[in-house]
C-alpha cells in the first residue's frame, strides 16, 4: 500500500479544514444533546398540542432515560445514516470528477492505498464523532433524568456503528464505480435493501441485516444473538473494501 500514510494524512487534514469537520460531527453532536431533552419534553409537547381538542384524552407514561436512548438511536438510524450515504457518494467519485485524483495517482500512491485511506479516514471520523456523541447523550440523559445506566446505550450504539461502517464500506465501493450522485442514490437503495432483509428471519439470524432490529431489542434489555450478524458484517466490510479496491484498480481515471 504505497503512499497510504501520506494520503491518509491529507484526508485527515481535509476533514479538519473543510465542511467535513462540521456537517457530520455538528449533526451528531446536536442530536446527542437534543435527544434527552426531546425525550423529556415530548409528553408536555403532546399535551399542549392536544389542549382544546375536546373528547380526546391521551395518557402518556412518564418518560425515562430509555426514551432518551431510544430517541438517540432513532435519530442515528433515520438522520445520520442518510447524511452518511449522501456525503459518501463523493468520497472517491468527487476526487475523480474534480481531477484531484489524477495528480495523486500519478505519484507513488497505489490505488489500494487511495481507497483504503478514504475508508479509514471516513471510518475514523464516524467512530470518533459517534463516541463523543454517545458520551454527550449519556451525560445529557443523566442531567435530564437523574439516572443513565450506560450499558444499553453503549451496546445499541455500537450495533448501530456496525451498520454504519457496513454502509460506509458499501459507499466506498459505489463511489469507486459510480458518479457521486448515482453512488449516493445506490447507497440509499442498499440501505433499503438491508432494511427489507431485516424483516426476514434467516437474514436476521445469519447476516448483517440482524443488526437493525437488534438495536431496539438491546435497548429493551432483551437477549440478542449478535455473533452471526457481527461476524458476517465484518466479513462484508472486508469484502466490500476488497471489491472497491479491485474496481478502482480497473477504473480509468
Amino acid at each position, binding site marked *: 500500500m504505497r503512499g497510504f500514510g501520506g494520503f491518509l494524512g491529507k484526508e485527515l487534514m481535509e476533514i479538519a479544514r473543510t465542511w467535513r469537520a462540521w456537517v457530520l460531527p455538528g449533526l451528531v453532536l446536536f442530536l446527542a444533546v437534543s435527544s434527552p431533552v426531546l425525550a423529556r419534553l415530548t409528553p408536555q409537547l403532546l399535551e399542549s398540542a392536544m389542549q382544546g381538542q375536546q373528547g380526546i384524552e391521551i395518557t402518556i407514561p412518564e418518560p425515562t432515560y430509555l426514551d432518551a436512548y431510544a430517541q438517540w438511536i432513532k435519530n442515528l438510524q433515520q438522520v445520520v445514516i442518510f447524511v452518511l450515504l449522501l456525503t459518501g457518494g463523493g468520497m472517491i467519485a468527487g476526487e475523480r470528477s474534480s481531477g484531484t485524483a489524477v495528480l495523486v495517482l500519478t505519484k507513488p500512491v497505489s490505488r489500494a492505498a487511495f481507497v483504503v485511506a478514504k475508508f479509514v479516514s471516513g471510518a475514523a471520523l464516524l467512530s470518533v464523532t459517534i463516541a463523543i456523541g454517545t458520551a454527550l447523550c449519556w451525560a445529557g440523559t443523566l442531567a435530564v433524568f437523574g439516572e443513565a445506566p450506560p450499558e444499553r446505550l453503549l451496546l445499541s450504539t455500537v450495533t448501530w456503528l456496525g451498520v454504519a461502517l457496513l454502509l460506509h464500506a458499501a459507499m466506498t465501493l459505489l463511489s469507486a464505480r459510480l458518479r457521486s450522485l448515482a453512488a449516493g442514490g445506490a447507497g440509499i437503495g442498499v440501505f433499503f435493501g438491508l432494511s427489507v432483509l431485516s424483516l426476514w428471519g434467516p437474514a436476521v439470524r445469519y447476516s448483517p441485516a440482524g443488526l437493525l432490529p437488534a438495536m431496539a431489542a438491546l435497548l429493551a434489555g432483551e437477549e440478542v444473538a449478535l455473533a452471526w450478524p457481527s461476524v458476517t458484517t465484518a466479513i462484508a466490510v472486508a469484502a466490500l473494501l476488497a471489491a472497491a479496491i479491485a474496481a478502482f484498480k480497473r477504473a*480509468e481515471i
Partner: protein
Amino acid sequence: MKPPAIEIRGLRKRYGDALALDGVDLAVSEGSVFGFLGPNGAGKTTTLRILTGLARADAGDARILGEPVGSAAVRRMVGFLPDVPGFYAWMTAPEYLRFIGGLFGLAGRDLDSRAHMLLEMAGLAGVKTRIGGYSRGMKQRLGVAQALMNAPRLLMLDEPTSALDPLGRKEVLEMIAALGGRTTVFFSTHILADAERVCDTVAILAHGRVVAQASMAELKTRHGAYGLALAVEGDSHPFVQELRQAPWVSSLRTVEGNEMRLTVTDLGVARRAVPEMVARYGLGLRTFETTELGLEEVFVELVGGGR
C-alpha cells in the same frame, strides 16, 4: 545503451466506436524537449493518460525509461501535469507541495527546501491565499512546480499553455525552456508557436497516428512553407480556381466568403503573383498579409490534402 525516455510501439485505444489511437509509434530521446503536437481530439491526452497509467491501451507497448508504464518505479521518475490540473482548493501552495513531496518520501529539511525552491521558481513564494482563489495561470505554474517536486527524469505536460492568457503562456513556456538540458520534457500542444519556441524535437499526431517525428530544424526544412491570409472583393471563384493550380501554393482553405488562408512554398513569388492575379480578375484586394504558419497548415502538408 540508455533506453529512450519514452518508447511507444503500436499503441491502440478505442472508446466505444471512436478509435482514439490507431497504432502510435514514438521514441523520445532522454534530454530532449519534445513537443507532441496535434489538433484537439488527435489523441494526445489519451496517449499521455496511457503513459501515466491513468488509462490502459487496448494493444501495443509503452515504456518509460525502459520500464513498463504505470509501475511504481516509473512514477518515482516522472512528473506529470494534466491539461486541467485539479488541486485541493482548501490547501495553500506550500501545503500542496509538501503533500506531494511527502508522497515521494521527502521529509524534513529536504522537503521544505525543495518546496521553497519550486515556489520561488513558480513565482508563488509568499502567496498566502488558498489554491481555490488562484487564477488559471497561478494554478498552471503550481502544476508545473508539483510535477517537479521529485526532480523527475521525465516531465510530461498536457497542453500546459492552451487555456492561458499571453502573459501566463509566456511564464509557463519560460519555465519549460529553463528545464531544457536538465530533464526530458514531453509536452503536448496544439499551438505550433509554443513548440517552435521551446522544443528541439516534435511529433505530429493526427487521427490517432503519428504522421511525422523529427527535430524542429528538420521539420522546418522538410515542410518549409509560409502562411498567407488573403481577402478579396468581387467574384473570387475563377481566381481561387487558378490559385489552387499555382505550383507555389501548397494548400488553400476558404475561411469565409472571399477570405482564404494559403500556404505557399515561395513567399517572394506569391507576393508578386497574387496582386497581379487579383488585378487580372478585376477583384479588389482587401487583405494580403503573411501569417504565422499554423499547425493546421503543417498538417495539411503532412497528410497531403487541401489542394
